[in-house]
């Protein structure tokens, strides 16, 4: 199939970016979206032009590195799919496709489709961990966890930190990401000791980074490649206010 792509090109963090139009011919429907961009880049390199910069790593939908907004939807039109797992059979011959980077003040564009997601790392550094004295691994089953809690924690831990929730949110809010991390550790016994300071510190860091506030559009849940539920946001709202009124520091 033949496609017309409108891709955001920006030379650097402070450069002015703009959409540039590229025609790609003979795209196989079996290609992933990233492979299609690889083909375009080969072509650009052959012509002596600068290839399009985009983030990617595992290309099997589990690492959270790739991500771009395709026709107004983070990771493209297919639900619960990362862009590396999006296949060209989703599109048809002659389609025009708009490709833009994640847009948020807290995710500054580095180059073309690559954004700096260091703000997520800094949120994690304020509370996305448990403090334990390391040593030998403890014996199996010494810390019983019910199936319900284990499943609940796993639902949240499925977050790969790609940032699609922020990209999808009309307010560029990082609530779903942060709530998944708070909810994951909060569902397990190991996470209870620091539960209240974790919610407090991660929420305040989220504000410091300049993410917006949640207005409950639920766009994040719809865009999340792992289908993380907004029920974790409700739980983080509870945990945060509980830590305001009863928390220890």
């Amino acid at each position, binding site marked *: 199939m033949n496609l017309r792509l409108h891709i955001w090109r920006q030379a650097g963090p402070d450069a002015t970016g703009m959409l540039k139009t590229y025609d790609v011919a003979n795209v196989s429907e079996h290609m992933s979206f990233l492979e299609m961009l690889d083909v375009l880049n080969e072509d650009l390199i052959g012509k002596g032009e600068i290839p399009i910069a985009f983030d990617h790593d595992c290309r099997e939908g589990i690492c959270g590195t790739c991500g771009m907004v395709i026709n107004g939807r983070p990771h493209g039109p297919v639900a619960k799919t990362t862009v590396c797992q999006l296949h060209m059979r989703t599109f048809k011959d002659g389609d025009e496709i708009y490709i833009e980077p994640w847009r948020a003040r807290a995710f500054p564009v580095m180059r073309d489709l690559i954004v700096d997601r260091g703000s997520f790392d800094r949120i994690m550094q304020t509370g996305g961990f448990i403090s334990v004295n390391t040593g030998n691994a403890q014996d199996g089953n010494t810390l019983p966890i019910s199936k319900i809690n284990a499943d609940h924690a796993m639902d949240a831990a499925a977050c790969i930190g790609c940032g699609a929730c922020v990209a999808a949110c*009309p307010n560029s809010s990082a609530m779903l990401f942060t709530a998944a991390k708070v909810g994951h550790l909060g569902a397990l016994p190991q996470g209870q000791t620091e539960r209240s300071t974790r919610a407090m510190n991660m929420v*305040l860091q989220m504000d410091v980074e300049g993410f917006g506030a949640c207005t409950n*559009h639920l*766009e994040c849940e719809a865009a999340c490649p792992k289908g993380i539920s907004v029920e974790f946001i409700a739980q983080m709202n509870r945990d945060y206010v509980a830590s305001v009124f009863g928390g220890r520091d």
Partner: protein
Amino acid sequence: MRAFGDVWRSNIFQKWVMALTGLMLVLFLIAHLTGNLLIFMGAEHMNEYGHSLRELLHGSAIWLARGGLLVAFVLHVWSAILLTRRNRAARPQKYVKTDWRTSTMASRSMALSGLLILVYVLYHLAHFTLGTVHSQYYAGQTGWEYTLANGTVVPDVYRMVIASFQEPLITTLYVLSMVLLGLHLNHAVASAFQTLGVTNRRISPLVRFLGPVLGIGVALGFCSLPLAVIAGLVH
């Protein structure tokens, strides 16, 4: 514990302020609507109700309610301005193309519908409570007294409502504002419960159903007054 200032300024705390004050205002709306619907029971009931509101607790109840409402309203608007500004600032560069999946026109225009409702509330108070606009219909003017069955002379609120809604301008503004209010509530109610964290997998469907039901119910309830007046059902 963190300094209270840090917490107070945080987005989630401001959202709690907005949700709690918003739910207070929804409760007020339901009470207000219940009072309004007394119009269908006739002048005696409505005027007596209006009189009893002003007399309750020797006249102090209405001022307590007004004080509470003013605080709720100011905090609601304050948090709305603060959060809207932050949300706008969080995405300095807009997308060229957007394709929304779950958000609605109502949910994305809460600030606008809220602002228009605020303007309407001020106008509404100037009309029905203060009598500074449309003063020819004001119930407090001389010649508009109503004598209750027990002999008390009170302002004829019933007549004020009927006379006002016979004016096309008043009715049009009223109906338009109630449609905006319905749209606002449509998103607001479910959103408030989610922010307060009372939702979970079982409750969420119920809460998301409650918003549109309350939005449509409140808007239709209020609109029933002018429509009944135009249709000549109450006179």
